[in-house]
């Protein structure tokens, strides 16, 4: 051991010991190396091992120690680096071996050295403790329930929560009463245990589509045939006789049908033949059998005689009674029963000889039997005599004559005499006409006629139904012939109860007379089981009794093959048995097959067969099947994905078949989309455009959330863990902890606290979650408006007036401008408040509208709408002259949308806004300046092209405490020097700024979660293909940007301190905030080669947002572009929505506005003027550029639009029909081509008109074309987000509130797609009332 170890190692006592095997290997390698390369080295041996040791275990002992310390340091450094410092690590690692993983030569301990102990947390969240306070909001005001009641309420509330249902209000009311009872009735049914045992049933497996459920239904048909009274006050002697006869006849027919005699006779003949055969054979061993057979014959004969006697007696009695009845009927000369018999007498010749033959046979047999008996007795007697017992007499031999006489007597009783004619008895069912039933006048006719009865049927005390009431016939029968079909589900009735009622003339109910009970035996298979039930009337009623004949029939509901009965257990069919029960041991079978031909086949063959794959684990060899089949098994996949609850399709799957082959094709489709846990699959029912928009929205929300969380987390981490070098107050934590920062810290110490930077308000507070709803009050003070459109039809009528002299100018003027009665409404969601109506096209309201909203600020996503309506009052004279009806209709003229999130963020908006008017407004026209006055139009600033509204909009509580996103905690991509520079400049700037809120942080957060300088955002990005090639690329680019979807949510990420998207994120998702639109537009303009700046400021409906300032190449005039609408404004335009300018950004620099003038129209835009603009970068420090935007972004083509267009049209029609609940909605398609044509031009109009006022000629054209319609309609244009947004837009126009019964609607939709599914939707809605 020591011989091989180098001397150095012995000295230094290394901690690392090499094992023997290792050294052996090492020696071999070394010897090989020596042989090949180094022939000379004798001292090389030591060196080599040392080298290898150095390689694997680090350099030296000393370096190992160093390394350990440095590792600690580097890990610290790494941590700090991760926290945003891009300063390189101060110590560099010199040895390459340090980068390898160190091999641990000492095993870690199996057991922890100390005692292990950890805190165990009890989680009480699942416990429910009853409290005496109500857990939920109870809107009952003044009532004060007792503690017990409150606990009860809480308990029901919890139960309702468990069911995900709502607490029943009745229950609440009941529980809150002062005199509430102690118990509450629950009418829910709870399952209990049945004592009946159900046998299992087997159904052959079928595809799910064909499976119709377990056949649990049966149909029970009960047919009431007749009811007969056997005891009744009206019963006469004839009735009794007839009923007796009836019974007798029934018995007779039954006997006849059973043919007992015939059967017995056949059996007797058979027995006789057997006996005679046995006798002829006469073998001694057969004596016992012969005796047995003879005894059988005797018994059969006796039975035959008895039965025949009975039958004959019955028929004789029948005949006698019938004769009696006939005699009675003749006597009393009236007939009150229907019973009729017919006798058919026939003489049979051959019967005599047959009779004789039979008689002789029987006689011989009887005689033989008697003889046998006699012999037997004599033998017994003889034996008795031998034994000495004296019996009285020896038995006598039977006399033949006596026997013959007795047999003859039997024959007479049992059989018809050969001379006697054969009588066939047939019952006659005579019809009503031939048998006239009448009764003597002495009977109470009137009474009888009233008597009618009905039956009620109960199955197991469950009422089924009642028969019609039947009149009692003269023969005391009720002939009903009525049947009930009862559908039984799952349970068979045990008993049948029938109540007999006498119908009374007074009440509906009737008098209950009797009850008939019987057990129903439904297990019998035969059809039409007859049932005869007799009854006895209750003692309270007159004496009555009788019986009811009924049949019941019991059949399965559906005729199904194989399954006849619920309780029938079928054996497994053979074919199924084969498939269900696995085959016995395929392996064994294979072995058996192998062994059989083993002998003839030579060894060479076997070798071929046994050739196994070259490399195989024994594990694999022993496997049943490869694991991949396990993973690809569809059934397992289904079960697994259902278990994981991630897939939408399999989540709710109730039924997974137990056999793989039962998986249907649907299952296949499911498992294809299977385990990929996507949020949404591109299913067939999702329009791809909808899907794109939805995904984009989700993506952006997720991005904001992630960045928000990340920054919050980092801010918190910074707050808690102060770095070592945190020396100065106000020192920015993100500046890192290198030597430079130490120096900076010293500097800031010596500079003193006076001009120390004000620390960001950021110190991120763990905010309390505001889960509760908040109440908001939105108040709108609407002052006045100008340029409201006027109704055009009235105008036309006016022009047709005969006297249009100069004096009528005033009349025209006033009429023209007062024929519109506008009012303003403020609405949010379904809530609305409106102003009074004013007159004329320049109305003044000076009114305050208020709207109460409630909700969590995160849920408020919709737009606050300020809409302008015209109230149209039509006088309607009804037929009576005194009544005059007024029909009020409100026509939508335009609206202004304020995103509620920006209102929440800014608190208030005020000033003059321009309403968004529809491009085409049928039925209205703009007020013409020329017709009012001769003065040139520019002297009337208010007669502008658009409708302006002066307003003051505010929300209370003003600014809900949404903390700004602490983005300054995020990692910064700029160099430390630049950051320091920016900080210094900021301190300079903050002394110059007239308003502190004008400061915009130059380091902004990108979509990657890093902070970069804002100048990096501006780059020449490629334009969409269609935009770049169009003839006026600038307008098209503006239009494209304006059509991107704006994200509406109250999120700090939307502001300047939030997230700035790059062009790829933005264009892929097509969702963005308004400031991102500005950045994109600015980049597009840079791409077009224009000189432009990004303006960061505050605008009216969007709050913090960005505009673009550019210099028109022809006129060198500076213009603003609003990215959200794509409109251009002059610098001096007072109606420009931009309210404040904070700073201007271009690629090279960032200029802060340090003018004291706040108004935009008065601001100087000479950027070289140092008194007005403060440049952030100068010659020493140039602005960083580029790196954020994706310069080779490839645009995608939009999806097919036709389906979407149809969808939108259908949705609008469906929605309008739905909103007009009470009235009929008729759609007029005649206008549609015209409207489509108008819409076709609209997109170009909107793109190129630059928002200038042009009276579009369609208005009048459409009216001229349809003179017999009163038309009102407008176009709507918006970018497509989803169908719900479309219907929301339509709804806010209230076009569906048209009360005229004759009104017809027409809708036309046109879509224009730009790249990346940016779609402009044009909707034309028209309501036409035909003029009488």
């Amino acid at each position, binding site marked *: 051991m020591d011989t091989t170890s180098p001397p150095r190692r012995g000295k230094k006592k290394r901690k690392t010991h090499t094992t023997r095997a290792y050294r052996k290997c090492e020696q071999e390698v070394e010897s090989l190396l020596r042989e090949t390369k180094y022939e000379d080295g004798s001292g090389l041996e030591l060196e080599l091992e040392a080298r290898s040791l150095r390689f694997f275990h680090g350099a030296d002992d000393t370096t190992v120690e160093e390394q350990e310390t440095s590792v600690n340091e580097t890990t610290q450094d790494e941590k700090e680096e991760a926290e945003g410092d891009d300063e390189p690590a101060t110590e560099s690692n010199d040895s390459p071996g340090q980068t390898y993983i160190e091999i641990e030569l000492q095993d870690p301990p199996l057991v922890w050295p100390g*005692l*292990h102990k*950890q805190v*165990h947390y009890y989680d009480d969240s699942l416990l429910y403790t009853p409290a005496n306070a109500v857990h939920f909001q109870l809107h009952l005001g003044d009532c004060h329930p007792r503690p017990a009641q409150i606990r009860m309420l809480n308990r029901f509330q919890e139960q309702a929560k468990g069911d995900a249902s709502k607490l029943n209000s009745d229950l609440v009311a009941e529980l809150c009463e002062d005199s509430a009872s102690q118990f509450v009735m629950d009418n829910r049914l709870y399952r209990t245990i049945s004592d009946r045992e159900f046998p299992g049933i087997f159904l052959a497996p079928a595809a799910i589509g064909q499976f119709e459920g377990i056949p649990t239904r049966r149909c029970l048909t009960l047919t009431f045939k007749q009811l007969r009274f056997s005891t009744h006050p009206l019963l006469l002697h004839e009735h009794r006789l007839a009923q007796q006869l009836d019974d007798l006849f029934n018995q007779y027919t039954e006997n006849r049908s059973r043919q007992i005699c015939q059967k017995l006779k056949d059996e007797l003949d058979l027995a006789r033949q057997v006996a005679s055969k046995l006798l002829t054979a006469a073998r001694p061993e057969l004596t016992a059998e012969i005796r047995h057979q003879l005894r059988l014959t005797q018994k059969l004969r006796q039975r035959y005689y008895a039965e025949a006697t009975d039958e004959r007696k019955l028929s004789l009695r029948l005949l006698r009674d019938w004769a009696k009845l006939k005699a009675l009927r003749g006597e009393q000369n009236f007939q009150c029963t229907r019973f009729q018999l017919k006798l058919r007498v026939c003489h049979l010749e051959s019967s005599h000889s047959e009779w004789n033959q039979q008689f002789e046979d029987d006689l011989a047999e009887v005689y033989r039997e008697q003889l046998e008996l006699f012999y037997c007795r004599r033998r017994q007697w003889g034996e008795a005599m031998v034994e000495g017992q004296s019996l009285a007499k020896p038995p006598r031999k039977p006399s033949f004559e006596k026997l013959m006489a007795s047999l003859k007597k039997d024959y007479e009783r049992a059989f018809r005499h050969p001379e006697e004619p054969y009588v066939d008895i047939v019952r006659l069912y005579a019809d009503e006409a031939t048998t006239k039933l009448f009764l003597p006048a002495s009977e109470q006719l009137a009474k009888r006629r009233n008597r009618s009865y009905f039956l009620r049927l109960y199955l197991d005390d469950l009422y089924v139904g009642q028969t019609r009431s039947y009149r009692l016939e003269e023969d005391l029968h009720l002939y009903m012939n009525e049947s009930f079909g009862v559908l039984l589900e799952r349970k068979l009735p045990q008993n049948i109860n029938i109540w007999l009622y006498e119908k009374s003339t007074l009440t509906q109910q009737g008098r209950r007379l009797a009850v008939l009970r019987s057990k129903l035996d439904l297990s019998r298979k035969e059809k039409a089981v007859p049932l005869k039930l007799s009854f006895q009337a209750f003692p309270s009623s007159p004496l009555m009794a009788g019986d009811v004949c009924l049949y019941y029939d019991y059949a399965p509901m559906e005729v199904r093959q194989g399954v006849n009965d619920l309780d029938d257990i079928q054996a497994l069919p053979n074919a199924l048995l084969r498939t269900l029960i696995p085959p016995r041991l395929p*392996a*064994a079978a294979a072995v058996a097959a192998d062994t059989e031909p083993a002998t003839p086949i030579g060894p060479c063959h076997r070798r071929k067969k046994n050739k196994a794959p070259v490399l195989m684990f024994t*594990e694999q060899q022993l496997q*049943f099947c490869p694991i991949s089949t396990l993973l690809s098994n569809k059934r397992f996949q289904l079960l697994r994905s259902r278990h994981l609850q991630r897939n939408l399709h399999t989540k709710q799957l109730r039924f997974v078949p137990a056999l793989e082959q039962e998986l249907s094709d649907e299952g296949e489709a499911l498992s294809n989309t299977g385990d990929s846990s996507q949020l949404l699959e591109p299913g067939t029912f999702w329009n791809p455009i909808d899907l794109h928009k939805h995904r984009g929205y989700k993506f952006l929300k997720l991005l904001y959330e992630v960045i928000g969380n990340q920054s919050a987390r980092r801010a918190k981490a910074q707050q808690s863990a102060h770095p070592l070098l945190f020396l100065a107050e106000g020192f920015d934590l993100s500046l890192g902890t290198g030597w430079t920062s130490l120096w900076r810290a010293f500097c800031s110490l010596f500079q003193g606290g006076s001009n120390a930077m004000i620390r960001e308000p950021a110190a991120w507070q763990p905010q309390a979650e505001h889960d509760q709803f908040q109440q908001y009050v939105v108040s709108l003070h609407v002052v006045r408006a100008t340029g409201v459109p006027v109704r055009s039809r009235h105008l036309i009528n006016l022009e047709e007036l005969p006297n249009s002299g100069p004096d009528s100018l005033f009349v025209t003027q006033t009429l023209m401008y007062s024929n519109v009665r506008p009012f303003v409404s403020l609405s949010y969601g379904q809530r609305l408040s409106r102003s009074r109506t004013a007159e004329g096209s320049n109305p003044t309201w000076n009114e305050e509208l208020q709207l109460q909203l409630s909700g969590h600020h995160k849920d408020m996503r919709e737009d606050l709408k300020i809409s302008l309506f015209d109230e149209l009052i039509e006088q309607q004279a009804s037929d009576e002259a005194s009544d005059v009806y007024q029909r009020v209709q409100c026509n939508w003229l335009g609206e202004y949308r304020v995103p509620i999130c920006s209102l929440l963020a800014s608190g208030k908006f005020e000033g003059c806004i321009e309403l968004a008017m529809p491009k085409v407004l049928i039925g209205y026209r703009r007020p013409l300046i020329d017709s009012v006055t001769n003065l040139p139009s520019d002297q009337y600033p208010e007669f502008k092209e658009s409708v302006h509204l002066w307003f003051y909009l505010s929300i209370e509580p003003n600014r809900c405490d949404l903390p700004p996103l602490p983005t300054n905690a995020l990692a910064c991509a700029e160099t430390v020097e630049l950051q320091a520079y920016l900080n210094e400049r900021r301190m300079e700037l903050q002394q110059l700024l007239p308003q502190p809120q004008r400061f915009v942080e130059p380091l902004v957060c990108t979509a990657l979660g890093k902070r970069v300088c804002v100048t990096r955002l501006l780059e020449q990005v490629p334009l969409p293909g269609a935009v770049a090639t169009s003839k006026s690329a600038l307008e098209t680019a503006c239009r494209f940007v304006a059509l991107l979807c704006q994200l509406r949510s109250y999120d700090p990420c939307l502001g300047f301190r939030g997230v700035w998207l790059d062009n790829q994120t933005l264009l892929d998702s097509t969702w963005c905030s308004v400031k991102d639109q500005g950045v994109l537009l600015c980049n597009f303009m840079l791409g077009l080669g224009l000189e432009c700046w990004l303006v960061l400021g505050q605008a009216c409906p969007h709050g913090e947002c960005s505009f673009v300032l550019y210099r028109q190449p022809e006129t060198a005039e500076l213009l603003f572009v609003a990215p959200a609408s794509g409109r251009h404004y002059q610098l001096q335009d007072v109606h420009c929505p931009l309210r404040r300018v904070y700073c201007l950004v271009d690629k090279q620099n960032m200029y802060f506005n340090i003018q004291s003038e706040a108004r935009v129209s008065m601001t100087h835009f000479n950027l070289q003027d140092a008194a007005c603009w403060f440049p952030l970068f100068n010659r020493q420090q140039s602005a960083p550029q580029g790196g954020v935007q994706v310069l080779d972004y490839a645009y995608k083509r939009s999806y097919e639009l036709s389906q979407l267009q149809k969808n939108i049209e259908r949705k609008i029609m469906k929605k309008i029909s739905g909103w007009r609940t009470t009235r009929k909605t008729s759609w007029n398609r005649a206008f549609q081509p015209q409207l489509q044509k108008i819409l076709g031009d609209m997109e170009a109009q909107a793109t190129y008109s630059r928002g200038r006022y042009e009276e579009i000629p369609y208005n009048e054209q459409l009216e001229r074309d349809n003179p017999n319609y009163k038309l009102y309609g407008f176009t709507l244009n918006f970018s497509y987000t989803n169908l719900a947004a479309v219907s929301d837009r339509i709804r806010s126009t209230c076009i569906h509130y048209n009360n005229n019964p004759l009104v017809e609607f027409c809708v036309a939709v046109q879509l224009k797609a730009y790249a990346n599914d940016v779609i402009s939707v044009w909707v034309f809605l028209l309501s036409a009332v035909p003029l009488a």
Partner: protein
Amino acid sequence: MAEVHIIGQILKAVDFDEPHLYCTWTLQSGSAWRLIQGELHGQTHVSANRLESCSDFAAPLDIHLSCAAIQGWPTLLVEVHAVNVLQQSWPVGYGFAHIPATPGAHRLEINTWKVAPNGWWQSLRERFGGGGASLSKTDLLFSGVERYKLQTRSSGKIIADLNLIFRKFEEYGVEFN
């Protein structure tokens, strides 16, 4: 592609010295086995019984496994932890059992052991509720390679009731009688 259903419960822990116990369990199986449905890990509630040394857990098990080979037959590993008044917990028992290889109802009694304290000071501390010695590698529970290094004390028993259903093993020549 044979399937195994393991249905049952971890019934109770008996004969432990400590009154308040909970048990964490894991079902471990080889690479040829796949979980289809059910939970492979779990922890029971803390159960206490001061009269008898028996803590009832009745923690349900319902696991559906599929397997491609017999190798790696599933084992049930249990760790019993004690909790004291200060809500500190430490392990007081390790144990494992193979799932029985016949279908039907089975009652498993898993004998557990715990690591012996290292020296009298530790044992004194342990005696007064200062924690317990524990394994640093939990794979010792089922691998026997390094067990010889351990010094343990025997501890109580975990009783588990299992119902086993095997399916399609016949197709591969495995039969149960």
